[in-house]
């Protein structure tokens, strides 16, 4: 108050007018779009949205339905294996089982092989944070500072590579697919690389720099649940070994739900599999390492094709159909209300 009033008189002379500027902004005259809601615009927008969503949804569902998919739950089929795995002291005993199935028709096109897990809470908060991205980038970091606990180091101080609950719980079943043609058994050629995201493979995961991989991981130890060290994940392919192993990378990209599937292999389209999987009898040979029964989980192996809208996921289509139906119904309700009111309105007019 004090300052304000004391400078007022002088200011009056300096500025001849205190009239506000005549600018569009200050006078609130900027161009604006003020849609007038009439019954025509409202109804047409509802019906247009409705029909658009319905058509998109229907085509999504149709395309999703055209997907061919084989899903086999093998958590119980290898019952002796699952029993064996319930006791963790048997971790180094091998256990194999095979699952047969028959394809009545050919599966044409690219065929993808997934493993699916149920009731595996990869989205639990403490699970999700239990990793060290810096370590996976190949940096020499002190993982004590990371959130890897309790899978950080062994008692003797040897750090785990890779550390954390995610890496430790990596899916380690090996699944091979065999085609039983007449009496001969042909192993279906599967691609184990090129399944991960480019950014993951090339930007987010790097091996520590060293002249060879085993020395790069010297001084570290494999996570407790692993059967072999990280630099032995793929001994055949240098570029698919260590942290840049596709199976590891895919596992490290945690799923948002407790039921999920991860891409495991792709069918290599050569020889008789050039067009996909021909009809006939097949066998999965599974090396059963991953225990799920302990936490009431299930695991599946899935063979599936993809279409333009992605894999076998009807959710998007259903969502579109649902909102399309809702918009259309609302449109009808508004029409009904409008028709009813229009009759009444004549009374109000004088």
């Amino acid at each position, binding site marked *: 108050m004090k300052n304000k009033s*004391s400078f*007022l008189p002088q200011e009056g002379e300096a500025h001849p007018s205190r009239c*506000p*500027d005549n600018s569009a902004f200050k006078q609130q005259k900027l161009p604006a779009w003020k849609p007038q809601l009439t019954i025509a615009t409202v109804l047409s927008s509802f019906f247009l949205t409705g029909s658009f969503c319905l058509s998109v949804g229907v085509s999504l569902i149709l395309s999703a339905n055209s997907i061919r998919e084989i899903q086999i739950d093998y958590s119980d089929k290898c019952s002796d294996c699952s029993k064996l795995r319930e006791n963790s002291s048997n971790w180094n005993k091998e256990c194999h089982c095979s699952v047969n199935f028959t394809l009545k028709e050919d599966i044409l096109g690219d065929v993808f092989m997934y493993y699916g897990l149920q009731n595996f809470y990869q989205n*639990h908060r*403490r699970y999700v944070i239990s990793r060290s991205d810096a370590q996976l980038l190949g940096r020499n970091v002190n993982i004590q500072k990371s959130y890897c606990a309790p899978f950080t180091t062994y008692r003797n101080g040897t750090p785990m590579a890779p550390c954390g*609950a995610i890496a430790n*719980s990596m899916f380690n079943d090996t699944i091979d697919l065999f085609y039983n043609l007449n009496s001969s058994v042909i192993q279906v050629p599967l691609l184990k690389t090129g399944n991960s995201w480019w950014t993951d493979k090339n930007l987010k995961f790097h091996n520590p720099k060293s002249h060879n991989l085993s020395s790069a991981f010297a001084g570290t130890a494999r996570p407790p649940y692993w059967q072999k060290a990280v630099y032995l994940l793929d001994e055949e392919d240098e570029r698919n070994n260590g942290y840049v192993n596709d199976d590891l990378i895919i596992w490290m990209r945690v799923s948002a739900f*407790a039921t999920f599937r991860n891409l495991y292999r792709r069918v290599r389209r050569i020889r008789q599999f050039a067009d996909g999987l021909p009809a006939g009898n097949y066998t999965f040979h599974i090396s059963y390492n991953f225990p799920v029964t302990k936490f009431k989980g299930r695991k599946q192996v899935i063979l599936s094709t993809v279409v333009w809208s992605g894999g076998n996921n009807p959710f998007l289509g259903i969502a579109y159909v649902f909102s399309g139906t809702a918009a259309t119904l609302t449109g009808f309700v508004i029409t009904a209300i409008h028709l009813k009111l229009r009759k009444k309105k004549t009374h109000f007019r004088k």
Partner: protein
Amino acid sequence: EEERQLQANNRDFNLQFEYANNSIKTSKYNFFTFLPLNLFEQFQRIANAYFLFLLILQLIPQISSLSWFTTVVPLVLVLAVSGVKDAIDDFNRHKSDKHVNNRPVQVLINGMLKDEKWMNIQVGDIIKLENNNFVTADLLLLSSSEPHSLTYIETAELDGETNLKVKQALTVTAELGEDLQKLTEFNGEVKCEAPNNKLDKFTGTLVLRGEKYALDNEKMLLRGCTIRNTEWCFGLVIYAGPDTKLMQNSGKTTFKRTSIDRLMNVLVLVIFAFLALMCLILAIGNGIWEYKTGYYFQVYLPWAEDVNSASYSGFLMFWSYVIILNTVVPISLYVSVEIIRLGNSFYIDWDRKMYYPLNDTPAQARTTTLNEELGQIKYIFSDKTGTLTQNIMCFNKCSINGKSYGDVYDLSGQRIEINEKTEKVDFSYNQLADPKFAFYDHSLVEAVKLNDVPTHRFFRLLSLCHTVMPEEKKEGNLVYQAQSPDEGALVTAARNFGFVFRARTPETITVVEMGETKIYKLLAILDFNNVRKRMSVIVRSPEGDLTLYCKGADTILYELLHSSCDALKEETTEHLNEFAGEGLRTLVVAYKNLEEDYFQNWIRRHHEASTALEGREDKLSELYEEIEKDLMLLGATAIEDKLQDGVPQTIETLAKANIKIWVLTGDKQETAMNIGYSCNLLDDDMEDVFIIEGSTSDDVFNELRNARKKMKPDSFLDSDEINIQFEKSSKNPKVIPDEQANGVYGLVITGHSLAYALEGNLELELVRTACMCKVVICCRVTPLQKAQVVELVKKYKKAVTLAIGDGANDVSMIKTAHIGVGISGQEGMQAVLSSDFSFAQFRYLQRLLLVHGRWSYIRMCKFLKYFFYKNFAFTLVHFWYGFFSGFSAQ
């Protein structure tokens, strides 16, 4: 401190009371206390405290579901920005404190004038101020360079008024002059009230050489004023530094909150409860999940250290979810809302359609937080003078000794409308006439020229009985400084008719009567106030006659008249009604010749009363009443009060928007009603205009009930909703729902009746009746009553009220209403200073309410809806996801 006691020039004596010295400290912090104090203050704001709470939660590793810097970064940013702002503000305050405290002033120490810094001045010091100096502390004026020890001051910093005010010292101290010897020997003892914040009141006594003298506000120079047109003056420091009235007045302002604010507070509380509920559900969910699933999942994800049971995990998860769901509590909403309001108030400031070019005044949103409330106004309480009307007064008509002047008639006796062509009265016979004054009735000049005794007495009264200050910078160029424009108009009229008020001293008034200079001795001024509604002067003419001249409101003055003028009273009443019917403001003037003996007795008692410390005002008003009786009626004056531009149209538009307009005015009933008709408030289409003018509580009650009976007969039935409601809840103040009358009605209530109606048992009756009417006019109301009426409606109606006014008498009303609007007009600045919005013309109210208010409200509502939608959409997804992620606060 109950009473202040001090002695001039006696520091040792004054020191024992430990009065504050004159250094002021408006700064809050120093270098060391800044950080803790500022942080403490900032964390008192709920938003910051909430964030701090979240931060603490996040620092607990078992709970932290988000990394701690997501909270720290915004919190530190907010704290830093406000902290830096506070620091800069406080630095500036330090600077200005230092500057003010180090201003030089001359102090009388040991018989010598010494330059001293302001902060070293102490209570009881005598200081010398020169022209254009700021007043150092609250001073008792002792003497000045001007005749009669007058001192002119400008009080712009105190109340914003720029006109000069005059202060005058006691004669006994004025004698001290600038004689340092005498001033040093001056040892008067002052007893006065404790420091307070009333700018216009001061009571105290000065004891000098055994004599007691009364001290009042007229002798005080308050800190913050500036000395003008006065070469020098001496003052005795009474209050210093933080005790001064200026400092006592600074600070605490009550915050007005809008209904959206209150709604938001409720919403935030509800949301807090909702948050707690969500977290509880999720925590329980987590407990169950950990028990049924998580326990087995420990192969891959062991429980955190020191978590050993599912229920403990659930407990921790509750807090984790508090962190993760914190976005649902719209704390940042408060900040965003403030910013939007600030923007909207800038739009009000920038609006060219509310800019008044004539006095270069744009509209101003002085409070930036009330914009959206503008769109919700239901009741407008308007002052009349200066708000609906221009407050430009011109002397228009008068009635002298039973003869009415002012109308112009043609030869056949027909009254002629006055327009620009009408011939004005020629005042050239009077050298001192004001050329701007216009009057059309020649017969009045004739009467003056014919030396008609009552006419002369009439104008003599007008030139003597007032508080106007003349300024005569050049010979013959008189300018009047009037505190009320009515007085200015009357004195100007007298001046033009040949009774020129030329000069005033505290003891004399110089009047040039028909070219002949006469000096009247001014013996007493019986000043005006809202209760007395009249003022009188007692003067002794050069011939030695003692006369009391009185002017005032007709209702009051008529009761004081001598019975011999009953006949004249009737004629004058007729004229008065005529004047009031034309919307003119009227005053009645009367005089009385006094007996010498009686007067001497009276003036002695007056002196005693005016030096009394206790009950001074009561004693004085008793004395005034004693002498102001058996007056002889002289006549009446009528002053025209012009309507502002566009008032009727604005009122019509506002009424269409279903806003009820109440006019609260100090004017008399006829004038008020007339203004009501002329600005479309009342019209002939109304079914009835009720007039409540009962003079007892019962009368008022009956009048109110009768009015209500006519408007809504069923409101007396037992089946009426409100009556049922009353029966149920008998005592607590309740909200009365709106009632619909069976037509359009108006209500006029006088201040006298209003006083009864505002008493406890009639309150409800008044509210029910008045709120059914479209228009309510309260006339003859005091400023306090204005505030009471607003308070009444606020209390019983769930409605937003707006008060608009321009003068000091509207301040209380403006402060009481939800929104106060000040007209930056003629009557000074007090109304504007206490208002929330201000502009120059009543008609801008339409744009303020119907455009800015509506837009602000719509914008705010849209924003709030979006904000809540956003928060809930954002948070409920987390809630939902909890069910899929093992309630792990992911």
